[in-house]
């Protein structure tokens, strides 16, 4: 059987090549499926293009980039396993395919749609669930059949549980997985920001496979292999972590982007909710519109897949003619980028407290933990105590929640948003070396150590937090009330 070599131009990787072989032939067929092509209609950064006009890149381009990056990471795995004659080509191909299709299940505006799902308890709004269903059955598994009858199912298993694929799974999910290495570089390039530059080639050149301990809670289970970095990459690791951290602060958590997401969540929740309650005609959309079709059968995979960014954006003009005032107003706002005004509550409180105390103060517990680490103590106890600013924000948020409940009874006039990002990826359950960047010591056969234990830079970084309120530009009374709450909370605050 003869195969054809294929090539795609990419703004980040330049040429992404698909050699003329059996595996890449199947991969090329996966790319041609309607499910993969759908990713052209889902933007990687959702509403970020309202702030960074260049950031219109799709999950299609990102997924191809992830595949290309995964192949480079897999070369590291291959070099390591060939030494022990443990290399398994099929396992590597399963993981590479998982890297390619990992984003298939994303809904319109990705994470904002998942917020709608959480509010309305829509199980297919979770992209992981949709991805798994798509890979296990249908067009995609058909395209992968030439690689073996159980291949598609193995790919779905790796997506659901990358650690079951041993070191091959680290390519799909770890601190140095292909997804993150692509999106960090691609999002930076397409937004045009100079934050988040990483030394990718140096990182890759120093990437190795090492053994790290794993456990659950206080109990050690054993050791597994994962990616670790050589000692000479310590500064590149710091840049990598800082870069990601800054992308969160400046791109992913940008106040205007989040403001648009808030409007979108309110809008779509309202449309689906009305439709579910038999009032679809009020939404402005025709009964065959994919959003209403989805609302009538939210557990139907086909109807879920009919939704994408283009469908929503195209529906805004009809929704702006809705007889429901929230739908008419919010759709028109999104269409014309007339976003609610933002009050950065945390920043305002920070300024007020600085004016009052001269400084806001670092949490005492954090000082203790750093000191303990410097002293080389093996055990530390970190009480999750808060500094004055955190306390003021919490207290303010409680009052703002009461206020929004009162003022939003008939119309969502005031929208609250908060978030946080630590230098490491959000920890789900037990923390351990798989969630961390592990660095090999420069001397001897010592085990890899957490970058935070040897990097003053990483260790010093406090989480980025925000608490914001969005409100209509004409809401003078609400604005005054919020300002009064902020004044009162700042006055009340003690060091």
């Amino acid at each position, binding site marked *: 059987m003869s195969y054809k070599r294929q090539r795609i131009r990419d703004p980040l990787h330049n040429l992404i090549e698909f050699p003329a072989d059996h595996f890449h032939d199947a991969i090329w067929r996966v790319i041609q499926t309607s499910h993969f092509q759908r990713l052209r209609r889902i933007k990687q950064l959702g509403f970020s293009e309202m702030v960074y006009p260049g950031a219109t890149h799709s999950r299609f381009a990102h997924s191809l980039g992830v595949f290309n990056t995964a192949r480079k990471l897999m070369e590291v795995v291959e070099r390591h396993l060939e030494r022990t004659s443990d290399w398994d080509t099929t396992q590597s191909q399963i993981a590479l395919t998982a890297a390619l299709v990992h984003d298939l299940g994303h809904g319109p505006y990705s994470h904002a749609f998942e917020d709608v799902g*959480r*509010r*309305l*308890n829509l*199980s297919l709004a*979770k992209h*992981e*669930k949709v991805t798994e269903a798509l890979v296990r059955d249908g067009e995609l598994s058909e395209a992968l059949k030439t690689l073996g009858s159980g291949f598609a199912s193995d790919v779905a298993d790796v997506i*659901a*549980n*990358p*650690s*079951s694929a041993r070191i091959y799974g680290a390519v799909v999910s770890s601190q140095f997985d292909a997804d993150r290495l692509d999106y960090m570089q691609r999002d930076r390039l397409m937004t045009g920001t100079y934050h988040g530059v990483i030394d990718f080639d140096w990182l890759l050149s120093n990437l190795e496979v090492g053994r*790290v*301990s*794993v*456990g*659950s*809670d*206080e*109990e*050690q*289970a*054993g*050791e*597994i292999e994962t990616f670790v970095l050589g000692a000479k990459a310590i500064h590149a690791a710091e840049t990598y972590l800082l870069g990601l951290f800054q992308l969160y602060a400046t791109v992913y958590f940008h106040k205007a982007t989040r403001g648009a997401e808030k409007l979108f969540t309110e809008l779509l929740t309202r449309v689906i909710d009305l439709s579910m309650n038999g009032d679809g005609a009020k939404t402005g959309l025709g009964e065959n519109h994919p959003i209403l079709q989805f609302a009538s059968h939210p557990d139907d995979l086909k109807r879920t897949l009919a939704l994408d960014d283009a469908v929503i954006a195209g529906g805004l003009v009809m929704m702006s003619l809705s007889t429901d005032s929230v739908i008419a107003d919010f759709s028109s706002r999104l269409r014309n980028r007339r976003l609610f005004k933002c009050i950065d509550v945390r920043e305002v409180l920070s300024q007020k407290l600085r004016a009052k105390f001269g400084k806001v103060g670092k949490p005492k517990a954090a000082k203790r933990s750093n000191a303990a680490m410097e002293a080389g103590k*093996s*055990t*530390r*106890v*970190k*009480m*999750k105590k808060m500094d004055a600013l955190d306390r003021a924000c*919490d207290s303010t*948020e*409680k009052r703002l929640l009461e206020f929004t409940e009162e003022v939003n009874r008939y119309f969502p006039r005031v929208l609250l948003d908060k978030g946080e990002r630590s230098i490491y990826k959000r*920890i*789900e*359950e*037990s*923390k*351990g*070396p*798989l969630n961390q960047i592990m660095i090999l010591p420069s001397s001897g056969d010592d085990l890899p150590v*957490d970058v935070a234990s040897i990097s003053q830079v990483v260790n010093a970084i406090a989480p980025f937090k925000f608490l914001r309120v969005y409100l209509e530009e004409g809401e003078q009374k609400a604005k005054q009330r919020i300002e009064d709450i902020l004044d009162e909370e700042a006055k009340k605050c003690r060091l």
Partner: protein
Amino acid sequence: MPALTDRLRAEKAADIVRHAGGKVVGKTRLQKMAYLLEITGLGAGFPFEYRHYGPYSEELADGIAGAYFWDLMSEEEHTANWGGAYSVFRASSTAGSARVNPARREILTLASKANPISLELAATAAFLAKENSRDPWAETSRRKPEKAEKYLDDAKILYSKLREIKTPKKMPAI
């Protein structure tokens, strides 16, 4: 079942700690406790999905964060001797916990004393059984070889003990 509101999620998360005697060691343990309550008909409605440590509920994780916010619970983070970190949760109050459903209390007591890895394996096997796995224990071993090698037998004993508790819904027979 309708989605829980933020405040209710926080209260339900703190309730698990409260009903377990006021203290729970480990995030993994807390997640698995909540999962066992859900499948035995004693839970609050937290939805679970499969993640790295087995059944996991993002809504519960949000509830835990909310429980700090509403001062219903506190958390201390400790370093484990294997290099990871683990949390100790303490409920701000144990008021009313005497009136808790006895089966719920029994499950929580057993789970809070269990080895966390055995508990993780037992909850994982239960989850896989619910997902119609043909051999949940074999599948658990395949997914978590580094843990199953030493702890699978203990997990099976723990599972039998949990299953003996009279609950509104019986745990799957595996």
